């Protein structure tokens, strides 16, 4: 069954509404501050909608469902940890309050006040490396979801004959490139203002889709059947064969479906806890909402109110993944070419009827678009603000600044089309995302904590923390790409080593710098950001 006319109507109305609203906000963009942080006019509920929409993309739904497919309900553990950490930060204001009060547009900008210009630049490079690589798999996973949930074959391609050359156009790649062009259109024109408005629309559509789908999955499977099925799958040791990567077969067994320690082990769970606190204080797309908030109090309230959203972010798509595991298990196994990532959308296709399918596809398009626009804008702002701007002898004129950031959004979009559509995931999607994010999370978290709360921190420690923090995850990516599966480094080892090396670098580097009487920028004698020190 392919899409019915009612599904197409829902999807087209939603897409047109988003583009019109996004492009309409262009008229309010007067300068880079309006473009990057919405003139710092964002209020609480708009902040909640925007943060929730940005942090739930199709990629999120895919990897959290994959967690459910492989680990049952225990797969929602990262969401639970994220909720706890977000709540703690929202109550205490840890990191986010001094950051908002500093009046900066990006995290690396904060470091210039404390550690000097070269640390800001280096931090910007690491942020971009981790952030853009992280975003690299969004399009492919998003396309996989949309193809499978629509009942289409992702390998279908069309042969196009043009007068001067001919080529094969893959349907998945064409669809995701088209979607990215729509996102680029309103993000390039309206920046954060367009992102906020479209995030709001997307929050509504996405929220409705997630609730409807979750209720439908539980209704179809039955809650007690789901719990019993998980336990039977685990105790019987049943294995589903994943053939999603050509020429490679992987057997997927259900880990302990309820107990996270038995499913993952202490090393992984504690790494996830560490990663969660780093994400909520350091992940630039999350922090962009803190920096766009009217004041620090609003930023804290956004965090408190969004915190429980993180449980559902993992738990609800996790239920869809569990439903997929049980469905294909009872069908005798996964069809050829299907894997742990694509089983969930294929399962949803079997239970969603006309109308509902349109709502769910619109919801997932909403999730993808809000995430892509938020990420594109954030990374472009960091490239301009922290990599290009510190190298300029003379500041650019306001229109030139705006044009530069818009061109950067466009350039990242072009990069994503090429990198995102040919990269093949070597392992679990969540592990890839966590490890690429770790390239900068470990080092920037160390710099933030050191810079804001340790008077002894200096630029020697900061540089050492950045370099050492990036080595672990980059080594993981390179080694795992070239060695056999059995010899690969586990994600928790790569993750913990990044945090450990980064903290060690900050402490040892700062102490060495102090001993040599170096490493302290002349302007930064206090641990507070410069704008807070002003009389």
């Amino acid at each position, binding site marked *: 069954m392919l899409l019915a006319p009612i599904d197409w109507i829902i999807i087209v109305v939603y897409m047109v509404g988003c583009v019109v609203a996004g492009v309409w906000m262009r008229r309010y963009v007067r300068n880079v501050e309006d473009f990057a942080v919405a003139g710092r006019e964002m209020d609480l509920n708009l902040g909640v*909608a925007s943060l929730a929409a940005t942090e739930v993309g199709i990629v999120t739904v895919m990897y959290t469902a994959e967690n459910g497919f492989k680990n049952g309900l225990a797969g929602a553990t990262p969401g639970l940890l994220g909720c706890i950490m977000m709540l703690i930060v929202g109550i205490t204001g840890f990191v986010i309050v001094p950051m908002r009060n500093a009046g900066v547009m990006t995290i690396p900008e904060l470091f210039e006040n404390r550690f000097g210009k070269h640390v800001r630049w280096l931090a910007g490079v690491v942020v971009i490396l981790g952030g853009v690589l992280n975003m690299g798999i969004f399009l492919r996973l998003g396309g996989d979801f949309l193809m499978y949930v629509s009942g289409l074959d992702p390998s279908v391609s069309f042969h196009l004959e043009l007068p001067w050359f001919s080529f094969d156009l893959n349907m998945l790649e064409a669809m995701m490139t088209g979607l990215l062009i729509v996102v680029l259109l309103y993000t390039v024109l309206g920046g954060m203002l367009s992102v906020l408005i479209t995030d709001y629309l997307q929050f509504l559509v996405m929220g409705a889709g997630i609730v409807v789908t979750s209720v439908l999955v539980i209704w179809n499977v039955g809650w007690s059947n789901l719990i019993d099925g998980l336990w039977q799958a685990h105790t019987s040791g049943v294995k589903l064969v994943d053939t999603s990567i050509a020429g490679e077969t992987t057997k997927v067994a259900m880990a302990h479906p309820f107990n996270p320690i038995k499913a993952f082990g202490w090393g992984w769970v504690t790494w996830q806890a560490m990663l969660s606190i780093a994400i909520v204080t350091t992940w630039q797309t999350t922090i962009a909402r803190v920096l766009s908030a009217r004041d620090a109090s609003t930023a*804290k309230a956004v965090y408190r109110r969004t915190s429980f959203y993180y449980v559902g972010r993992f738990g609800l798509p996790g239920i869809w993944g569990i439903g997929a595991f049980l469905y294909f298990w009872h069908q005798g196994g996964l069809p050829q070419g299907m894997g742990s990532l694509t089983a969930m959308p294929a399962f949803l296709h079997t239970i969603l009827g006309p109308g509902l399918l349109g709502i769910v596809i619109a919801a997932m398009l909403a999730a993808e678009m809000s995430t892509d626009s938020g990420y594109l804008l954030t990374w472009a702002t960091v490239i301009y603000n922290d990599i290009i701007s510190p190298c300029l002898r003379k500041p650019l004129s306001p229109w030139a600044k705006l044009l530069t950031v818009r061109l950067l959004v466009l350039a990242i979009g072009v990069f994503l089309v090429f990198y995102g559509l040919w990269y093949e995931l070597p392992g679990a999607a969540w592990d890839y995302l966590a490890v690429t994010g770790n390239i900068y999370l470990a080092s920037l978290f160390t710099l933030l904590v050191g810079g804001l709360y340790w008077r002894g921190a200096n630029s020697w420690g900061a540089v050492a923390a950045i370099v050492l923090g990036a080595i672990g995850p980059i080594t993981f990516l390179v080694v795992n790409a070239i060695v056999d599966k059995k010899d690969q480094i586990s994600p928790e080892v790569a993750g913990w080593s990044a945090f450990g090396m980064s903290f060690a670098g900050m402490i040892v580097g700062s102490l060495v710098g102090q001993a040599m009487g170096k490493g302290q920028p002349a302007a930064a004698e206090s641990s507070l950001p410069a704008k807070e020190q002003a009389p």
Partner: protein
Amino acid sequence: MIDTFFIAFWTVMVFASIAWYGYLLFHVGIKGGWDIVRMIRALSGQPAKPEASGPKDP
């Protein structure tokens, strides 16, 4: 015993999440709309609505 605890815990988490998403959909849906109106007024240079949905704590 420990498995029963985890099953009960995850059951509460899943159903509470569905309820929370449903609640936020309406609450944030309505108040977020007003936030957009206030933000657009502020950006247009017109006087902003006094009661934005910002937190009341000092």
